[in-house]
Structures are given as structure tokens and as C-alpha cells.
């Protein structure tokens, strides 16, 4: 990626997290903390939209995933066959992963998950603070309700912070256009005004669909000079900006600042497939491949994460097969292995011995596995703990 584009996104992500941190000083001022409010063990899940095995871990797709295949696979426990036996929509799949139960909810996130998420189980049992659990998502099919269930004994007080960095960029673009100055989208410097305006004026982040406690909403002026510098560099280039790029940068800043024990990141650049551009879908896969590698390297760099982190990477599902009556790669609706069957990679502390486990597993197996990593063994969940991990 060209350095100036990176600088803009990075500056924007720092700005964003700074902004969140400031607002959270007020939000958590009266929150009773547990003994530590933290746990040294860290789990990160990266769910990366609908990607077929044919474009990734089959021979036809290896060229799209050089980092996953060459750099990460040899040090991972790899599951080539993970089945999504639930509803292959984004909201239902992510909430199934988080809850360990197949969810059958409104596809557009109108209702919260019907079972507790692992955020809730762990925060309640271990007294973790809200800083310890985050969902950072590119996917606009999700809503803030993904962070906590509707179960009375659990719910939002034990849920995760949920933010949608890509939505900030989208809103900025749309706002610029709707206010009659599309030149802002062409002028990177002008985009700064749009980003700042949204952050400053979105009451309780409602315009962005976020769920982060606290109502304070102001821009940290200390960040303005670094933003200005980054933007000045950026205006010299003309490269596109991707939502997943920004999502990762915000995730990195959250990791640096809050060091959450539980972090779920969802990427969605690949979902451009719904609009029928295969080349942009492949570009999304390559971006995801690079971003996962960058995330893994960051895990090795940050003291809070190095040596104590397990990273799971998986597509939410595949996509429909070529020739399906659902228009192939465009969608993920057919009840077929191309859509239901995908892969899971596990890296880090739980994957001390690299292995390939060919026994089929399911998306709902992740929740009991993660709970087990934190010593919680007694949950009544339909999934099984993943084989081959050191937990």
C-alpha cells in the first residue's frame, strides 16, 4: 500500500480510538471493576465474509492468499473443513460463532442473539471490564446488537463494544455527496472535514450504528496536526481506500490502547461480490490475506499480546457455486458445500503444534473452545471443543 494512503487511514484510526478513549473516561467513571478487570489470555477472531475454498485453500485459489498459505499455514492448526450448518447470512453467522448456537434471527440485525455470546459468558464469570471485549466490523449487515444477547441474566451489561469503522468512511462519502460537494471525495484533504464532522456530531454514535458506552463526543484536538500531516501526504496520491484496511487500523489502535482479551474483527471487502465484480472480490481476498498477516505480526510485537494470544481466522461461509441458480459467486444462499463448507486457521498459543485436522468441524465449535481456553468448561452448548489445540 502506498505510504501516504496508509498514513491517512492510520491517522484517522488513531483519531477514532483517541476519541473513543476520551468518551469512555466518562462512561466508565462509575463502573465497578473486578479485581483486575483484565485477563492475560487473549483471543482474536477474524471473520472475513463469504469466501469460497476455490478462491483460497484449493489449488485454484492459492495465489490469492500468499501470506495465509506460505507464512501462516505452516505454523497453524488448520481445519480445511468447517461447516456452516446455520443460516448463511452475515448477522446470523457471526452471532452463531459468538454464541455457539445456530442463530435464526432477522438478517439485518434487528434483534440481538438469542443465546449469550462468549463476551457475556466470560465477562460475567471472570469479571472482565467492558474494555476487554470488542467487535470491530467492516460489515454493514451487522448492527450493534451483535455484541450482547437478549438473555435476561446476561445482555448488554456483559456485552462487547461494537464499532463499524468502515461506516464512518461511508457516511463521510455520502455526506459529502448529499451536501453537494462530491469534490471532497476526490480531494483527500477535504475528506478530513467530513470525518471530523461525523465524529463530532453523531450523538452517541447513532449515525454510525455503534454501541460504545458513553455520550461524550468530541474531537481530540491533539490529533489534528498529525491528521493534517497525513492528509497532506495523501492528496499527492490517487489510490482507493478500502474499508477493511481502516477496520484493521482501528483494531490495531484498540489493541494498543485497551488490549482487549476478546476481540472479534469482521472484514467485508470481499462482499463486493454481491455487485458482480469478480476482480474486486479477488482483490478483497488479497487484502484480507495481507491484513491477517499484518495483524499476526502486530500480535508478535505488542507486549500485551505476544506469547498469550490465540488468533482464529475463518470465512463466515463460502459463496454459491458457478452455475447455481443463485448466480454463483455473487451470493451465499445455496445449500451446497461451496457455500456451507469453508476453512478455519488457528494461530498462536492454542496452536503450539502445527497440524492439519481434517475431521469436519462447525462454526458453533468456536464458542466452547474459547470458553475452554479461559477455563470455563460447564457451558451447555451444542458445539464441541476444537480438536488439536493446546488449551
Amino acid at each position: 500500500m502506498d505510504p501516504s494512503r496508509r498514513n491517512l487511514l492510520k491517522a484517522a484510526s488513531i483519531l477514532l480510538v483517541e476519541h473513543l478513549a476520551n468518551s469512555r473516561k466518562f462512561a466508565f467513571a462509575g463502573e465497578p471493576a473486578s479485581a483486575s478487570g483484565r485477563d492475560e489470555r487473549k483471543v482474536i477472531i477474524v471473520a472475513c465474509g463469504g469466501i469460497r475454498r476455490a478462491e483460497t485453500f484449493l489449488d485454484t485459489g492459492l495465489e490469492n492468499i500468499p501470506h495465509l498459505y506460505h507464512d501462516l499455514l505452516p505454523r497453524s492448526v488448520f481445519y480445511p473443513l468447517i461447516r456452516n450448518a446455520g443460516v448463511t447470512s452475515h448477522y446470523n453467522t457471526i452471532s452463531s460463532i459468538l454464541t455457539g448456537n445456530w442463530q435464526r434471527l432477522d438478517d439485518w440485525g434487528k434483534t440481538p442473539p438469542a443465546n449469550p455470546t462468549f463476551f457475556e459468558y466470560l465477562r460475567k464469570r471472570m469479571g472482565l471490564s467492558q474494555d476487554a471485549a470488542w467487535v470491530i466490523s467492516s460489515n454493514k449487515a451487522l448492527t450493534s446488537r451483535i455484541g450482547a444477547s437478549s438473555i435476561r441474566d446476561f445482555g448488554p451489561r456483559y456485552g462487547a463494544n461494537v464499532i463499524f469503522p468502515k461506516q464512518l468512511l461511508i457516511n463521510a462519502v455520502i455526506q459529502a455527496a448529499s451536501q453537494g460537494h462530491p469534490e471532497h471525495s476526490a480531494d483527500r484533504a477535504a475528506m478530513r472535514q467530513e470525518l471530523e464532522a461525523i465524529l463530532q456530531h453523531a450523538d452517541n454514535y447513532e449515525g454510525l450504528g455503534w454501541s460504545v458506552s458513553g455520550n461524550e463526543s468530541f474531537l481530540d484536538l491533539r490529533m489534528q496536526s498529525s491528521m493534517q500531516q497525513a492528509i497532506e501526504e495523501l492528496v499527492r496520491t490517487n489510490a482507493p481506500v478500502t474499508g477493511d484496511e481502516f477496520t484493521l487500523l482501528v483494531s490495531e489502535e484498540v489493541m494498543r490502547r485497551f488490549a482487549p482479551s476478546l476481540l472479534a474483527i469482521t472484514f467485508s471487502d470481499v462482499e463486493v461480490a454481491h455487485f458482480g465484480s469478480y476482480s474486486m472480490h479477488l482483490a478483497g481476498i488479497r487484502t484480507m490475506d495481507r491484513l491477517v498477516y499484518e495483524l499476526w505480526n502486530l500480535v508478535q510485537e505488542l507486549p500485551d499480546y505476544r506469547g498469550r494470544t490465540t488468533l482464529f481466522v475463518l470465512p463466515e461461509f463460502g459463496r454459491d457455486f458457478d452455475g447455481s441458480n443463485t448466480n454463483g459467486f455473487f451470493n451465499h444462499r445455496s445449500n451446497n458445500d461451496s457455500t456451507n463448507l469453508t476453512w478455519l486457521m488457528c494461530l498462536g498459543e492454542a496452536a503450539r503444534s502445527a497440524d492439519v485436522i481434517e475431521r469436519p468441524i462447525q462454526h458453533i465449535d468456536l464458542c466452547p473452545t474459547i470458553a475452554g481456553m479461559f477455563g470455563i468448561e460447564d457451558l451447555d452448548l451444542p458445539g464441541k471443543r476444537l480438536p488439536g489445540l493446546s488449551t
Partner: protein
Amino acid sequence: MNERPGKAQIGELSPDAYRGLVDRLPVTMRPALNQQLSQWSLLFPFEQNRVASFMKGIETFSPSGLGAVTAPLWALEKKMGVKNWNFSEANDTIENASQLARSEYYSEWRREVQKVFDTVNAAAQSPAPTPAERTRLILLILPRNLPVSPQSVWRQWDPRGHEIKISGDSERLCELALQGQPDLATLAAQQGGVESSDLWLIDAEAKLRSMISNVSPIAASSLGYAALKQFRDRFLAELNQAPKDIQATDEIIAKLRLESWDGWGLWPEEIANQPRLRKFVIDLFLSGNGALIFSNAFVEWAVAEALRRARPRTIVARFGMRSKPKPFTSIAIFENQQRVSSLPDVDDPENSAVDAVILARYAWLAASRYPEQQQTLCICVSEHCDSAYAILPAGKSLDWSPQHPIASEELYRWLMAQILS
């Protein structure tokens, strides 16, 4: 419904008479049929015949007989709790689809619905033999400005086909097909075709329409992404007002279906006087699949929908170039890129080629789902490579060795001979 209705076996088509029959069916089968009946005059002949054939099949059953055929589906709907859903019987809605898809019985439901359709359609079949079909044609064009890879362009195509080297200017083939003596419209007329839904021209740009003769014996159904620009922009702006909510989106879609678009004066000339085609375009845009966003997705999806709904004898489809995503607008791809960025459009030939290659193949795969594919000759031409890939109807073969290059003129003559044979 995968049956092939014969026009001869269908008598007077009467949508009003069919409504009572629809009410005898399980609830989840009704929306699609009721929607078709409510738009009867805007259906293509193939669709009308298909519905009529199905209704004829229902009429062959006594009430108890139909009850027996549909009993498993009724029972399944009860288990699914359909009567407690917000389920529209009048139209297919996103809400309907969403409720069905998230039911744990969804797969079972699909199987049961298919069983009912199969049984009813089988009952409707006439014992009379179907007359021999003439050869149908799908001609797909990857234009010269799309730099497809000669090594891989045909790699994933149906192995039954043949790669053909074209000597000289391969662009001539499309011109000859639409302007030669005879041209495709003349051939269609000679074969008894009088229906515009028998011949489709679907174009990412605006080339095909300009090629076809003004004195063609039958009017073609002609759709051009470029020609639809004004309409698309307006339609996209309306559609993007939909909030992130299924019910509200259904309401907006219903409103867009009923909108009096004709008053806006945005339709291109070739569609302006064809209400059925205008309705096809609206349905196409409302069904997603990128048809409003990318020209090549428009071409592929229009071909697929034309095949499904009209089962034309001839389709000529031409793919094209898309622009590179602009800074920032690539994250809001569903927006009108020209509206949200003032930067000029810049062509993206390499990636347009990647898109067009797979979407051209999808066009053939869409055709291959229907029984008519047995009589269909599909030729996809890469003008950049001066080569083509031909999939022949069952029992047919090339008249020459595919290793030997063939001139566009010869290929055209061979193609016309195949259609006439």
C-alpha cells in the same frame, strides 16, 4: 418450475380464473403465483404459458387428490409456523424470503415445494410429442478493449466445447450476425418468430443497437446499460433511500415497482414504447446482483433473467469496460460513483476483462440449466484474442478442425447454417 410448456396445449389464458386455483395451494406457494397473475399483461409469453400449464395441472386433480399432493407441504408450513409470520401472499418480498431462509426447515421446505411443482407439472403434460426444436443461439462478445488472457480465457468453460481460432478481424462476426444477409432478426422471422422476446440484444455499452437494421422483420428486446444511464441514476437514488430494515425496504421496493417511471421521460427510445421490457428492467434492478452498479453484471444478470423468463431463441450479449474505483468511493460501491466523486472516470481494462470472462461463462451456465440448452449453440468471442469458444447443440459437430483458424465470414456462414438446420 423447470417444465417446458407447449403453447399448443394451452387454451385461452385467463388469470382471473387462476386465482381460485392458487388459493388451493399451500401458503408459501402463493406469493410468486399471485404476483405473476397480478402482472399478467406484462409477462412474457413463455411465462404466461408456464403459469397456464401449471394451472392446467392443478385442475387435473380432484380436491382430495391435490390435498394429498400438498399435504406434506401444508404440514411443514405448520411446523414452520408460517401462519404466525408476517408473510405476504400477494407478492414475493424480502421479508418472505428472509423468514423462509432462517427457518430450520428451509431445505426441507425447498424440497417439498419442488415436489409439488414437479407433480403438478407432470400432470399437465400433454401426451402429444413435442415438435423438433430448431437451433437456438447465444452469442457472447468480449470486446477487443478487454485484454483477456489467451492462456486462461476458455480454461473453465464447458469441456464439451471447442476453442476456435479466428483469422483476421473477429469483430466482424458480431457485425455480420446483426447486419449480414441474412441477419439474426431475419432468421428469427423465417423461423416463425414474431415476438420481440425471441431475440434479445444486451449490451454493456451502446454498440449492438446501432448495428441492428432499422428494417428488421421483428423488433428485438434491446437493453443497453449505457442507454439506461439516466434511468439508472434516478432509480439508484430512490433505492438508496431504503433504510437498513427489511420491512421498510420491502415497502420501498413495492413503491418502486408501482412508480410511474414513464412520466419521468428517462427511458431510452428502444424501451419507451415497450411496457413489458420496461417492467423487465425494473424487476432486474430490484433483484440486485449488481445490475445497477456494474455494466458487466448488468449484462450477465439480464441474460440470465431473459433466459429464465422469456426463453428466447436468440441472445446477443456484449460485455464492456468499467471504470476504476475512485478514492473513497470504493467503500461506498453501492452509490453512484459519478455523484459521490468529482474525479473523472478512468477505464480499468484488466479488471474489466477478469469480470467479463467469468460473467460470460455464467451466461452460458444460466442457459445450461434449461432443457432448451440441448438445442442451443453458444459462441463466446474474445475479440482481443481473435478466438472463440463454441458449445454445440447435442449431436452437432464443427465442420472443420478447430486447430485451423477460420475467417469471421466463414464462421458467420457456418453459424447461420446451424440456425437454419
